[in-house]
């Protein structure tokens, strides 16, 4: 058991990345909403400049949702362009570390067995009963799926679409325009992925709060045992040995 616990500790790179990323992403999201207020229309393809070409007219975001708390495209860009650095290089560092120290292959990569419908259904029902125990492995299937999507798709997607929006980066890497189908498509995907991350954030924090937030925060900050504590109203009568 001690061995498991030792193995399931959050490695230092994970812990450092997690909190740097949190700060960066909150500032990027809130300054991004300020930027959105400058021209709240989203388009597909390379170009678009008027409401009648837009696929989405974005609502105006109020001051309490934005950085700074009043409309200023220049100041919002200052924050956004500053935090892009710890965000992007932090993510790169996290990927190098978790491929290097085995965290990715051991804890995040899903096995073939986990993709069986039986197993997935069991996991979903367990979650719906607020039972989050998951035996030997560090994360259960749904956690692996969520963390994998965030680390593998949404976060790198923000970096790549952010670069594709930048005319100076497009000259260096013209394929950025091709993979997203144009600069305005990249801008639309940047916006959609930002809200995808917001959705993850809400569920993620809710689940941390439900499953023993103090222990979680300690393990994500200092390392140590990370097993979730089920909330008092969880139903664990499945006969599951875990």
């Amino acid at each position, binding site marked *: 058991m001690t061995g498991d616990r030792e193995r399931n500790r959050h490695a230092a790179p994970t812990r450092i990345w997690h909190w740097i990323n949190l*700060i960066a992403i*909150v*500032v990027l999201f*809130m300054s991004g909403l300020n*930027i*959105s207020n*400058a*021209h709240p*229309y989203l*388009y597909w393809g*390379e*170009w*678009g*400049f*008027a409401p009648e070409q837009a696929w989405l007219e974005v609502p105006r975001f109020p001051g309490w949702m934005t*950085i*700074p*708390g009043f409309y*200023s*495209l*220049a*100041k919002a*860009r*200052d*924050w956004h*362009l*500053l935090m892009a*650095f710890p965000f992007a290089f932090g993510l790169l560092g996290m990927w190098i570390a978790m491929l290097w120290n085995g965290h990715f292959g051991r804890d995040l990569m899903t096995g073939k067995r986990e993709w069986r419908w039986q197993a997935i259904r069991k996991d979903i029902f367990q979650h719906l009963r607020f039972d989050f125990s998951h035996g030997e492995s560090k994360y259960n299937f749904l956690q692996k799926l969520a963390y994998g999507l965030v680390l593998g798709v949404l976060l790198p997607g923000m970096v790549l679409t952010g670069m594709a*929006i*930048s*005319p*100076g*980066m*497009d*000259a*260096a*890497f*013209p394929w950025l*325009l091709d993979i997203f189908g144009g*600069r*305005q498509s990249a*801008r639309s995907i940047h916006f959609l992925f930002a809200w995808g991350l917001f959705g993850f954030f809400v569920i993620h924090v809710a689940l941390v709060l439900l499953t023993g*937030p*103090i222990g979680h*925060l*300690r393990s994500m*900050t200092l390392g140590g045992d990370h097993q979730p504590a089920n909330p008092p109203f969880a139903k664990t009568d499945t006969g599951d040995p875990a």
Partner: protein
Amino acid sequence: MSILMKRRAVLLGSGALMLGACSKIQQSDAGRGLFESVDDWHKGLQRFVRARDALAREYAPEDISPFFRGNGSTDPQNDGYPQHAANGFADWRFTVTGLVERPLSLSLDQIMRLPQRTQITRHDCVEGWSAIGQWTGPQLSTFLDLARVRDSANYIVFRCADDYTQGRYYESIDMIDALHPQTIIAHRLNGEPLPIRNGAPLRARVERQLGYKHAKYLTGVEAVASLDDIGLGKGGYWEDYGGYQWYAGM
């Protein structure tokens, strides 16, 4: 309170503080210094991963957007501009001054007789929108060669005819962008003489940067060693009065 509770309180508290602190940081000297260097980091990174003369994408004629939006000044009324517009810019002069061995003052006719470059490129505004247009004009490097720009020149300042609320518009780029093959002084858009809303009779195209660098209503360019004595010293109207980044490649 246990040490863990304290830790949590510290974490949550610091989150709340951070948001309040943002505005404080941005107003402090250290904060301003930090923000002023951020565009330098982006410039350094972009130039590190990009060949010096890497081209912005050029598009096919069918990609041209049906209209090319004008923004900022779209119909200047100051200092005789309307009179120039009324007589078709026949007396317009474009000067090349500053750190050059042979200052120039050219008419539009003379400019049209120089070698021309035509390019179909995408224009990205800092606000977020984009439009695609075909631009024609001599490369800025052609003017700088004719005027024999001195080695001591580090920046090219675009001089313009349009007044904003705080004064005359101006912009600047460094020699890497000034000598870039796609940096042209355009007098045609989509095969027609440049419309007034897009900067008639002459405007800059700096294709690897955002729209506010593409100065309109050009009366000349000036080669300088430093931007300190130009305007308020930040290198452009929006940089001086709006707090925008001087390097606008992102």
